[in-house]
Every structure is written in structure tokens, then in C-alpha cells.
């Protein structure tokens, strides 16, 4: 951009002028095309009608425009030279947003993945994470739950931390952003994923987990454009599980020796029918944008709503956005992005048992024998325990979360001296959240005991970033050089308030003012700040030899005075072999580039992490009055410092057959050291954990990405994108300790991370089988012998939740006005620990069970794999191989059939484009997994607990019908 301005200002040297019009193949005028007299700085840009004028009468004109093949036309003394530009299928010239700048794809030396807006078209407008899942290699998107209110979690090239976050840094138009739920995918122009250290190093201490750069839409050259998109749709779970019917449940209870007056329990309720519902969604977005010589604008607004497939779950979002860029004069440019989002959801409790109000497990373990309500309007319970039916958990309480967010920035860019640009940017992210909970004093037993519960929590997050950079760009015939230096300061302040009251007289007033007893009330505040110095140099010689080097210095308030500053260098090199003279003979290869990079990036943790904090609230009544009390909350560690990830990457990019086929491969090795490890301390210290810089983790892997334009006829085209990623994760050193987590079903912890093995392996007993004589499960002990009472030492590694590889494939077919997009996505070789089955096949108490327990052992001699029912004993349902299942899956993530009205028709009604489509998401899933859905984790984005299903809200199948209209 700057270069263009400078070029334009250079004085004309020729007397005569040449003019003309640049059009596309279909004859539409093409504005914004660069027109340069070859070998000179003499150039211009086409106007909104595609016209240009240049002082020249000899030589060759070079026309270039992003997305089109460069075109050279000799002037030959003509005064009018029209040009027709051909759309370029190669993406080499594509401009890619990188940290603090842009680069052409051909110049990139790091490992960078790009997802364009086409990935979001015709998809549910929910969260961008689910939309880019499977779209680019090396990026694993974890959707731990299918509920509308669930966020997503992302791992770029594996999990590189244990106690600190492994989430990448999300940057929206230059502003780091923690919350991804309220970002509106329809406003996104492109997403760049910086995967290796050399590309992420400009983000230094925030870059260890990779960086996701989100660029929102801006006005494009041409007439003002109005775009309207709308859809409506339905969703439902794609599978139901079979449970015992009334009679079978009664049999099981009788076998336990449980008797009751069964005549009271004659209902026949299908709890899955009561809880699962037909989810509905709708989305309406309107965007107006445009650009002229000096101004570009983009204004959008919209609303989307998703009613979940589980009773009472929902979310909705209002969004407004303005982007404005103004070229004030030849040296000053200013602009702003501003978005306001209002987000609302109603969560449902999953990942927990019916005892604790878990809806999914409640649905499975509540016997069909009871109805929903008692005659007095209260919720029914299990005949033997006061476990209320799952409708009590969905309908019994109000649970509303509202969040209003303002995310925006203002910037100014000043061109000064020759080739220098100064840019100053101020970004803000302001979020105000409020959670309201009300449990009425009548319908649930907990509500009755507490006389109602009202909770109101507010949370405020106030973040700002100020960055100032100076850029120097210089290009000659054979080389180009750029340098960037700058400073960044960032600060976040959190403020929370909470109040909880009991003692409500009615269900009429849900707010806390109606309660009579304050259970808790308080607020707290905390802050965190970072200051950084950044620098980068890029150099390219003859388009053949490319160099990028970064150096960033970071300081954080989380770390002690001894180690407050971290230093993060990186360097990467590229060699475009295809530009070498000796390569010119190889006709089929258009582009061949080798890349290699190395760098250090860092990771931060928490707030005040190094301080020995003394907490408050350990209050105790003395003399009948509650006295304030304090307690030691953490151990001081002045040496605490950054967790450092060193990553080496090599890659190759190839384009063949006029870029009909493009192929990239990357191999990397990522070593994380000085892990910020929340080391579990012996509780005899009085503390649970202490943060230390100990330990090492390693991730290494290979990523392949292939794009092929199989057929490119006028009427019919077929493109294929395929990517596959292999990542191997290993705990190298954690001081010989074990990181244990994933406590499920009262059977202890299932996930163990130990040295020399991948993170989060499943750890438990080996089930041998069911003893025909006693009906009890026998386990295989450490000596290979069978035992009914294995010791804790008999446990071993019984499963691995890390996939061997993940992959995605998109096929796009277009025939005349029809288009079909089939997006397959999958994961192979990962195990799931199906702890739901411990609850539904454990047969230890009065919970209803899965249909498979009909085959349980009943009399000596029975040969079966389901043990006998023993009330109160967990010996037959320990954490063991019995519940480990293959979680591999291949699913049709999205299939879209679209139809665009013919242009002849729509131009009559003054439309540019009108497209109707129907999209099915998760239409089918091929998996051997027995639970609701293999894409699951009861522990969300946890670093060390993965692939555990414990009554988790499943991914659903959905169908949406939509229309996109542009005029």
C-alpha cells in the first residue's frame, strides 16, 4: 500500500499518455489494478470503472491485481491499451496477514495456514472455531461438548503446556482477544494461523501455542455493496442409547434386594424423548461496504439464535460492526474497527451424575417408571433415592448468562522521510458479563431445603493494548528489505461481584433482592500487565532467497523481579528453487520453495503467579460475631519465569501444472522447557499445588496440505482440498512426578501423564472377563494373573486419547448454477474413556442402566461379558479396559448444496448475486464408538485430561436452509 503511494508520487518522465480499461474475462470492469511501466516506477491504479491513464508511449505495461495473473502488454505507440485479466488459480500472490503486517504467500518462510471466508459461507454462524476445524493442517479444534453455550478449544501442533494455557493467541484485527464465543464468523474475511515459532515469534511470550490472526471484512473497491444472509435450521442428536424399560429396571432392583410399592411407579417415561428436543436455529446478517480512493467502510449488523437439542439450552448473539479507513493525505492514514456484541446463553449441566443434577446422565439413569411431576407440581425422584428426574435440572432453575462486549481499535499511520512508516494503534476489549441463577423454593428438593437460591454474578474485563511501530521498506530491482521495530504495552483488569441469597417466599421474583439470607456476597479485582519490544527484518533477493528474523523482549507482571523479562529470537529462510536459472527447464513445476525456521516463543501464566499470596475469607465466629480471618494461599517464588518453546520447522511448497495442484508439507519439532508446572505438592505442606519452572514437553509432527483443481471447465468445476496432520506428543521430564486428573464416577482419576509417554494416557486395570462361577469381573494383575481384588499397583496404561492423525477433505463441485460442497473431517487412532458406561453399566445402585445389562450374569455357569449386579460395590466397574473404546471417526462435517440464480435473471431485479443453499452438518458419522458421540471431552480443553465421556452433551446433527443475496 505504502509502496503504491510512493510509486504514484514519482514524477512522470514521458510526454505522451496511454489509457485504457481493464476488465475481467466476463467483461466486468476491474478497479484497483496496478498498472506499471515495466522497469520504471511509473505506475497508477485503475479507477472504479476499471480505467487508467499513464504517461508513456513506449515499453511494456505490467498489470497486476491480487487474485489475477499478472499481464504484460507492449504499448507499441498505442494511446489506448485495454487489458483483460485472467483470474489466477494460484494463491502464490495471495496477501497473507502475518503479525504486524502482511506478506505475499510466495514470500512466507514460516509455517502459516490460511482459511478464507469461503470456509464460513453456508455454515452455521456460531463460532469460528467449529468452522475452521479440519480446514488447515496442524490445527486441532476440540469441541468438548455440543451445547450451544460451549466454547471450543484449539491446539496448534499439539499441547505444549501442562499447567499454563495451551490455547493459541487469538488476535482480532491486531487486538489479542481472550473470548472467542462472541466473535461473529460472518464478519471474518480470513483467518491466518501462525504455526511455527519463526512466524509466531513476533508475538513472543504469547506465541508458544501458535497465533490465530482474525481479519475482519473491510470495504472493497467498487460500487457500495449490500449483502444479506439468512438461514433457519434444525438440530438433533444423531444417536439414542437404549436403556432398561420399566419391567427390566424393576427386575434389576429386585435382584439388588430393593423393594418398594411398585404400584406407585407405573409411568413409562422415555427420558431421552423428554430431554432431547428438536433444536432450532436462525441467523440474519446484513452488511454494507464500499471503497473509494480515500475511504473504505464496512458496516454490519445481525442476530443469530440457537435453541439447543437438549431441553432448555440456548444461545443468541446480536452483533454490530463498523470498520473505517481514511487516507487523510499523502502521509496520514487513520482508521478504526469497532464491534459491539451482546451474547446470551442458557447452559445445561452435563459431565456429571444424576446425583449432582447432570442432565445427560440424568436422562440415562432415571428409571422410566416415574413421570415428570408429582400431583403437587414438584419434580419426581428415583423410587429409591431422591435423585430428581433430569427435567428438574433443565427446567427447575433459571440460568442466564449475558455478556456485552466492545472490541475495537483506532490507528494512525504516518509516512515519513523516505520509506518509513510510523503506526500507532490503541485497542480496547471491554466485556461486561452477568450470570443470574434462580432455583425456586417449591419444585426441587434442593430448592425446598434452601428455600430457594438466587445468585447474581457480574464480571468485568477491561483490556487495552497500545502498540507503536516504525517500518522501513526498501525495494530495488533485485531485492527488497523491510525492518520493523516497536513497543507494545498491554494491561487487563478483572472485576467480579457475586451475591448469593436463600430464603425466597415465592417463585415470582427471581432476583436476589427477594431472598432473606445472604449466603455469600463479595467482590474482587485483579490485574495483569505486559510490556514488550518487538523487531523484525525481512529480506528477499531476486525472489529466490528469503529471510525473516524476529526478536521480541517481553516483560510480565506475573513473574518475579529475578526473571521478569524474556527474550524471544527467531529466524527463517526460504529458497524458491523454481526461480533459479537451472530450474527453468522443469516445465510442470511452477513454484518450488523450501522453507526452514527456528525460534523461541514463550508462555505466561495466571496473575501474580510468583507472589506468596495471603487470602482472606477464612472467617470464623468468636464471641458470636464473625471475625475476619486470613490464610496462606500460595508459596512465593521470585525465580518464576516464562515457559519457553523452541520450535524448528522445515517445509516445502510446490505448485504444479499451472498451479492446478498445490502441495505443502511441513515437519516440525517443538520442545517446551521450563514448564510452568502447577506441581501437586504433598498436602502436608498445607498447599495443593505450587507453580514451578520444571519439566519438558515435546511435540513433533508432519503436516501435509494438498489443493487440486481437478476439473476447471466452464460449466463444471471440481476442486479438492485435503490436509492431514500427524503429531506426537511426549512428556520428557516432569521431575519423575505424575500429573493426574480426570476423576470420574467416584472411581478415581483416569488420566495420567508421566515421563516418556504422551500426555493424558488412560490409566487403570485390565479387565479379564466375567467369572462364570461368581459373576464377578476378574482383572489381570501385574504378573499376568487373574484376580478379583487387584492392587493399585496392578493398574497400567490402558488407552491413549491422542489421535494418530487428524484430517479434513473438502470437495467443491460446481455445475452451472449449482454447487455442492462436501467437507469430511476425521480423527484416527484416539481412544475415548466412556465413563458414561460406568454409570449406565455399573449396576451398583438405583440408577437405571443401559439395555446391555440385560445380559448380566445371574446364575453360576452364565457365560457373559456383563458382570453381576452388586449394590454398593464398585469392584465390577473399576476404571479399566472395559470402558476404553476406539474413538476414531470420520464424519461429514458439512455438506452444502447451493443454487445461484442465473445472472441474467437477477440483474433484472438489480441483484448481484442470489444464492440458496441447504447445509447439513454432521450428517453422518462413521465410528465404532458406542456412546452418543466420539468428539467429546468432559474436561473441556484440559491439557492433560482428554477424550473422557461422562454424560457429555453430544455433538448434534443439523440442517440449515439459507439464502445469500448481494446487491
Amino acid at each position, binding site marked *: 500500500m505504502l509502496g503504491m503511494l510512493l510509486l504514484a508520487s514519482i514524477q512522470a518522465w514521458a510526454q505522451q499518455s496511454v489509457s485504457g480499461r481493464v476488465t475481467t474475462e466476463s467483461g466486468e470492469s476491474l478497479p484497483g489494478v496496478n498498472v506499471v511501466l515495466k522497469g520504471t516506477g511509473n505506475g497508477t491504479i485503475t479507477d472504479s470503472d476499471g480505467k487508467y491513464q499513464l504517461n508513456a508511449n513506449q515499453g511494456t505495461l505490467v498489470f497486476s491485481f491480487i487474485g489475477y495473473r499478472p499481464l504484460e502488454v507492449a504499448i507499441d505507440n498505442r494511446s489506448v491499451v485495454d487489458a483483460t485479466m485472467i483470474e489466477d488459480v494460484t494463491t502464490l500472490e495471495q496477501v497473507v496477514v502475518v503479525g504486524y503486517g502482511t506478506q505475499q504467500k510466495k514470500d512466507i518462510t514460516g509455517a502459516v495456514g490460511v482459511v478464507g471466508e469461503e470456509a464460513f459461507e453456508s455454515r452455521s454462524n456460531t463460532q469460528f472455531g467449529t468452522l475452521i476445524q479440519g480446514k488447515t493442517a496442524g490445527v486441532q479444534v476440540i469441541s468438548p461438548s455440543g451445547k450451544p453455550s460451549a466454547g471450543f478449544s484449539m491446539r496448534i501442533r499439539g499441547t505444549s503446556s501442562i499447567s499454563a494455557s495451551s490455547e493459541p493467541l487469538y488476535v482480532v484485527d491486531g487486538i489479542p482477544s481472550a473470548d472467542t464465543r462472541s466473535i461473529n464468523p460472518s464478519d471474518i474475511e480470513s483467518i491466518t494461523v501462525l504455526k511455527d515459532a519463526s512466524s509466531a515469534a513476533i508475538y513472543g511470550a504469547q506465541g508458544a501455542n501458535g497465533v490465530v490472526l482474525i481479519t475482519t471484512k473491510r470495504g472493497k473497491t467498487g460500487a457500495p455493496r449490500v449483502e444479506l444472509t439468512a438461514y433457519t435450521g434444525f438440530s438433533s442428536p444423531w444417536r439414542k442409547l437404549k436403556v432398561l424399560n420399566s419391567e427390566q429396571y424393576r427386575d434389576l432392583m429386585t435382584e439388588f434386594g430393593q423393594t418398594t410399592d411398585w404400584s406407585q411407579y407405573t409411568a413409562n417415561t422415555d427420558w431421552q424423548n423428554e430431554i432431547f428436543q428438536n433444536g432450532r436455529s436462525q441467523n440474519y446478517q446484513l452488511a454494507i461496504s464500499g471503497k473509494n480512493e480515500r475511504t473504505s467502510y464496512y458496516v454490519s449488523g445481525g442476530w443469530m439464535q440457537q435453541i439447543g437439542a437438549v431441553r432448555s439450552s440456548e444461545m443468541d448473539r446480536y452483533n454490530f460492526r463498523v470498520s473505517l479507513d481514511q487516507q487523510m493525505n499523502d502521509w496520514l492514514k487513520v482508521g478504526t474497527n469497532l464491534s459491539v456484541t451482546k451474547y446470551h446463553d442458557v447452559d445445561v449441566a452435563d459431565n456429571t451424575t444424576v446425583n449432582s443434577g447432570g442432565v445427560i446422565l440424568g436422562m440415562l439413569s432415571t428409571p422410566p417408571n416415574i413421570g415428570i411431576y408429582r400431583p403437587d407440581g414438584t419434580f419426581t425422584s428415583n423410587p429409591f433415592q431422591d435423585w430428581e428426574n433430569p427435567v428438574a435440572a433443565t427446567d427447575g432453575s433459571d440460568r442466564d448468562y449475558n455478556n456485552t462486549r466492545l472490541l475495537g481499535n483506532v490507528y494512525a499511520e504516518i509516512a515519513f522521510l523516505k520509506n518509513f512508516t510510523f503506526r500507532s494503534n490503541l485497542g480496547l476489549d471491554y466485556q461486561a458479563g452477568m450470570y443470574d441463577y434462580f432455583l425456586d423454593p417449591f419444585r426441587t428438593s434442593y430448592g425446598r431445603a434452601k428455600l430457594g437460591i438466587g445468585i447474581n454474578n457480574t464480571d468485568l474485563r477491561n483490556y487495552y493494548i497500545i502498540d507503536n511501530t516504525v517500518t522501513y521498506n526498501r525495494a530495488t530491482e533485485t531485492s527488497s528489505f523491510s525492518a520493523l521495530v516497536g513497543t507494545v504495552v498491554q494491561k487487563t483488569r478483572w472485576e467480579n461481584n457475586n451475591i448469593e441469597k436463600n430464603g425466597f417466599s415465592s417463585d415470582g421474583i427471581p432476583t436476589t433482592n427477594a431472598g432473606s439470607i445472604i449466603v455469600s456476597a463479595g467482590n474482587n479485582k485483579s490485574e495483569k500487565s505486559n510490556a514488550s519490544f518487538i523487531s523484525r527484518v525481512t529480506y528477499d533477493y531476486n525472489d529466490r532467497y528469503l529471510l525473516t528474523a524476529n526478536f521480541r523482549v517481553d516483560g510480565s507482571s506475573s513473574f518475579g523481579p529475578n526473571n521478569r523479562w524474556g527474550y524471544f529470537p527467531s529466524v527463517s529462510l526460504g529458497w524458491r528453487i523454481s526461480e533459479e536459472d537451472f530450474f527453468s527447464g522443469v516445465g510442470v513445476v511452477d513454484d518450488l520453495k523450501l522453507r526452514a525456521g527456528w525460534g523461541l516463543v514463550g508462555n505466561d501464566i495466571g496473575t501474580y503467579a510468583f507472589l506468596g499470596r495471603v487470602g482472606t475469607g477464612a472467617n470464623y465466629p468468636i464471641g458470636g460475631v464473625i471475625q475476619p480471618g486470613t490464610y496462606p494461599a500460595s508459596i512465593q517464588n521470585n525465580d518464576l519465569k516464562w515457559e519457553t518453546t523452541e520450535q524448528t520447522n522445515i517445509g516445502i511448497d510446490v505448485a504444479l501444472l499451472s498451479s492446478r495442484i498445490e502441495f505443502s508439507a511441513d515437519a516440525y519439532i517443538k520442545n517446551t522447557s521450563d514448564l510452568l508446572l502447577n506441581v501437586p505438592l504433598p498436602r*502436608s505442606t498445607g498447599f495443593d499445588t505450587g507453580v514451578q519452572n520444571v519439566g519438558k514437553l515435546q511435540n513433533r509432527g508432519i503436516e501435509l496440505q494438498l489443493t487440486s483443481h481437478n476439473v476447471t471447465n466452464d460449466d463444471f468445476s471440481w476442486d479438492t482440498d485435503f490436509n492431514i496432520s500427524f503429531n506426537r506428543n511426549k512428556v520428557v521430564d516432569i521431575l519423575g512426578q505424575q500429573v493426574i486428573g480426570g476423576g470420574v464416577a467416584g472411581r478415581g482419576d483416569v488420566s495420567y501423564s508421566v515421563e516418556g509417554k504422551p500426555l493424558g494416557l488412560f490409566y487403570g486395570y485390565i479387565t479379564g472377563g466375567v467369572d462364570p462361577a461368581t459373576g464377578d469381573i476378574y482383572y489381570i494383575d501385574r504378573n499376568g494373573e487373574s484376580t478379583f481384588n487387584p492392587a493399585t499397583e496392578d493398574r497400567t496404561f490402558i488407552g491413549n486419547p491422542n489421535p494418530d492423525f487428524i484430517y479434513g477433505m473438502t470437495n467443491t463441485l460446481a455445475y452451472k448454477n449449482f454447487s455442492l460442497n462436501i467437507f469430511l473431517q476425521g480423527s484416527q487412532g484416539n481412544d475415548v474413556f466412556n465413563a458414561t458406561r460406568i454409570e449406565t453399566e455399573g449396576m451398583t445402585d438405583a440408577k437405571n442402566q443401559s439395555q446391555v445389562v440385560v445380559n448380566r450374569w445371574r446364575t453360576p455357569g452364565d457365560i457373559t461379558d456383563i458382570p453381576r449386579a452388586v449394590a454398593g460395590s464398585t469392584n465390577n466397574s473399576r476404571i479399566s479396559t472395559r470402558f476404553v473404546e476406539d474413538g476414531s471417526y470420520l464424519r461429514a462435517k458439512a455438506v452444502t448444496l447451493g443454487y445461484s440464480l442465473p445472472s441474467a435473471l437477477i440483474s433484472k431485479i438489480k441483484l448481484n448475486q442470489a444464492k440458496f443453499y441447504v447445509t447439513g452438518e454432521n450428517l453422518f458419522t462413521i465410528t465404532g464408538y458406542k456412546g452418543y458421540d466420539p468428539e467429546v471431552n468432559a474436561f473441556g480443553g484440559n491439557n492433560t485430561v482428554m477424550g473422557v465421556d461422562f454424560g457429555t452433551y453430544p455433538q448434534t446433527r443439523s440442517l440449515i436452509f439459507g439464502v445469500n443475496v448481494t446487491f
Partner: protein
Amino acid sequence: MKRKFINTLAVLAVAFTLPSCEDYLDLKPISDATSENAYTRAADAEAALVGAYDSFSQEYYIWDNVLFNDVISDNYYAGGDNAEIFAIEDLNISPTNGRLFNNWSQLYNAISKANMVLEKVPGITDIKLDAGNRRNQILGEASFLRAFHYYQLVKTWGGVPLIVKPVASTDPAETQLERNTETEVYNQIVADLEFAVANLPDTYGGDASVNKARATKGAANAMLAKVWAQRGDRDYNKVLEYANAVITSPAAYSLLPDFDDLFDGAHYNNAESIMEIQFVGGPEANFGPQLLLPPSISGDTWRKFVTPSHDLVNAFDAEGDIERKNTTILFENAPWADEFWSESVNGSVPFAYKWKSANGWASTNRQYLIRLADIILLKAEALNALNRPAEARDALNLVRNRAGLANTTASSSAELKTAILNERRLELAQEAQRWDDLRRNNVAVDVMNNLVEVNVITDQPKDYVMTAQKQLLPIPQSERNRNLKLGQNEGYN
């Protein structure tokens, strides 16, 4: 000109953002104190001490001590829906039982708070601490608390790591400690209690709600009596000495005339109470009663976690002990079946009834930490052991007569020993004493193995497999994972 100005501005902006960074990054917590500023005044010392007392409102002291003394023994069955609690009743407690780890963690956390007081308070310069000997009182209170918690640890697990200073480093060499011997732990407890006796007042004035909340000389003497009785190398002379010190204390402890008054919720901080947990409701409330009380009181229809045993009910009936039985147990028709009491729903089931008000999980009912009747019966036990049966009978009869029972008929030393043990059972049921009593009298194995409890649904007697090794509980597996030097008690793996 204008451009030059802007150029200069730009360079300055970049150049001057960095130097102020150190200050920018030096953030102090807003809602927490730090170890540097939290202990500088007398009020800070008091707050740290209150924090140490607050450990009495943790789950261990609310009801886990009942589970591991009354439910594990012949007094109560487990109920509710928690497999880990059923395992306690079944004497089938595995090292992975989560309650063990919680208890261990809570007790050691309580000790760490007391250690912090003992470490920091001597260094605080504030004249308020030196007025009225307050500094030494605070140290005495903290020593008492540390001893109280170590006593729970040592009688549950035997020897445990003895930590008497705040842990200031996460270095495994300093955090992973071997277990001290049982005797070493008891010696530390005795030393702390003796320090407490020397430094604590009999009372803090006339306000019972202070005197029964804080550690006093009486409470420290009472703990010394209990500790000297419970430790393996017991010394009944010392038990007698310290029990007498309590009984004759200037604090004027006395048995309440009416046993029921102890538990009716209208006589908190009474004359018999030596120390009790000071629940006042609201944020400092007792959730324990809701777990035990019957539907008519709790409003719940779910099965409660602690159910009186036939053996306990029979023990009351055998003594004709109506008053204490009615205070301790309430029969009510329950909307669930109970394998020991009620073959089908809506049969009559007994409920643990010493806490009487649930108040929506927020009761003001108090657990006694120490009360006089316990000490009087300990005195009887000591006198009998010291071969002074007449005086022992006198002490025993004090407690019996208060409950409306006639004097004891036990005459021989052995009979008297059994009578005192039984008296303690009836007097102190649901007060977390029974398992300690059985083990101290070396009858835990026999009592449990001879216990006959019949499942009325299956008509099968329950098989309690008690062994000498089960008298100590297993070291929590989770703690062993964190501290590789711990080892395990015999009989567990």
C-alpha cells in the same frame, strides 16, 4: 515542518515507552495480601489466628470424623448414595477413598495456618500484642490448634510427617518428607499442649461465646488427658492429673442437669462445653444436620447418610437409657427401604438426631470439640486402670445419674472397664469417639467381628471383616503420589 514534527514525535514515542516498564509491571494484588504485608500488626496476627480456627468449619470436623468413628464402628450404618461412605461402614477402605485424602488435606492445611501464626507472630512489633500478654495467648492458641489437628492425624494414620514450620519452598527435598514415628508425633502434640497450658488463660472474661470458641487452659488440659489415654504408651496417672485439672478448673465446667439440653439448640456454649464449633448460621453455618435428619425436619425425601445401628439401639435399650436414646435417635417412617431396618418403603427407620435443626443446609447446630462428660468418663477410666475402683464408680455414676440411670452395678475392674466403655458409647454416640474408644480398649477387632447385623431384605447377616491392621487407615493414595517417601500402613496396598 509539520512532517518533521511528527517524525520526531514518532521516534520519541517508541523510545520512551520502555523505560517506565519496571513500574508498569510491578503490580500488587488488589484482593489478596502478600506474605510481605499480611503480618505486620496485631490485627493481622488476630486474623491469621481466626483463619486457623476456621479450619473447624471444614468437612472433617463437620462430619467426616463421625464417619470414621461412628459409622466405621458398631454405632451407625452408612446410608445415602455415596459408595465411599459405604466402604467405611464395610471396613473396606481403600487408599483411593477420596474422603481420606480430603481429611488428610484439611487437617494439614489447618496445621499450616497454625504454623504460620507461630512463625510470624513473634516477629510482629505492635504494642497491642504485648498488652495483657496477648502475644503469648495467641501463640498458645495456635499451639493448641496444631496439637488438636496432629492428634486427629496420628490416631487415624499412626506416624505422619511432622511439619512445624510454614513450608516456604516447592523444592521436593523440602516438601516430600518421610513419616515421623507415632511417638514423635505424640511428643510434639504433648509439647504443644503443655506450651498451651502454660500460656493460655482459664477464660477470656465472662463471655461464654468467646471462652468456648477459643482454646483455653481447660481445653488444653482436656486434650492432654485424651492424648495420654490414647497414645500407645499411655499414662493413666497423667490422664487423671489432666482430667482433674479440667474438672477443678476456675472456668467452672459442670455437667448440665438435663442431658437433652446439650443438644436442643438452645444451650450453645453451656457450662459443660469445653470447646465447640461456633456455627452462627448464614455464611458460617453447619451443613452436617441436613445430611442426617429425617424428612420431617430436613424436608428432604432422600435417604440419609448415617443410620443408627440395631446394636446401638439395643445398647440403649439394654440399659433402659430412655433419655439419652431419645436425644440421640429419632424413629420415623422413611420413604425409602433400608436394608437393616425396613424391608420396604415407608417403614420405620431410626435417624441420627443429636443435631436437631437442618435449616436448609445452614444450621447453627454445633459439634462439641470437647465436653466435660467425656473428660469425667476418661477420669473414671484412668481411676479404674489405676486400681481405684470406688472413685472410678463415682465418676461413672456422675454421668449415669445425670442421664437418669441408677448407679453402676459393675464391680470388678474388668466389669468396670466394660461399663465405662459402654457408658461412653451411650453418652458420646455421634460425637466421633467410638472408634477411638474401641481401639484404646483394644477391643475393636473383637467387637466388629462379633457384631451381628442382619440385612432384612436378604436375611443375611453382614460380614464385618475386621483385622488389627484396619485399626489404622491407609495413607491416601493421592498423597502417596505427591510424596514418594510416605510408604503405606500394613495391610493396605
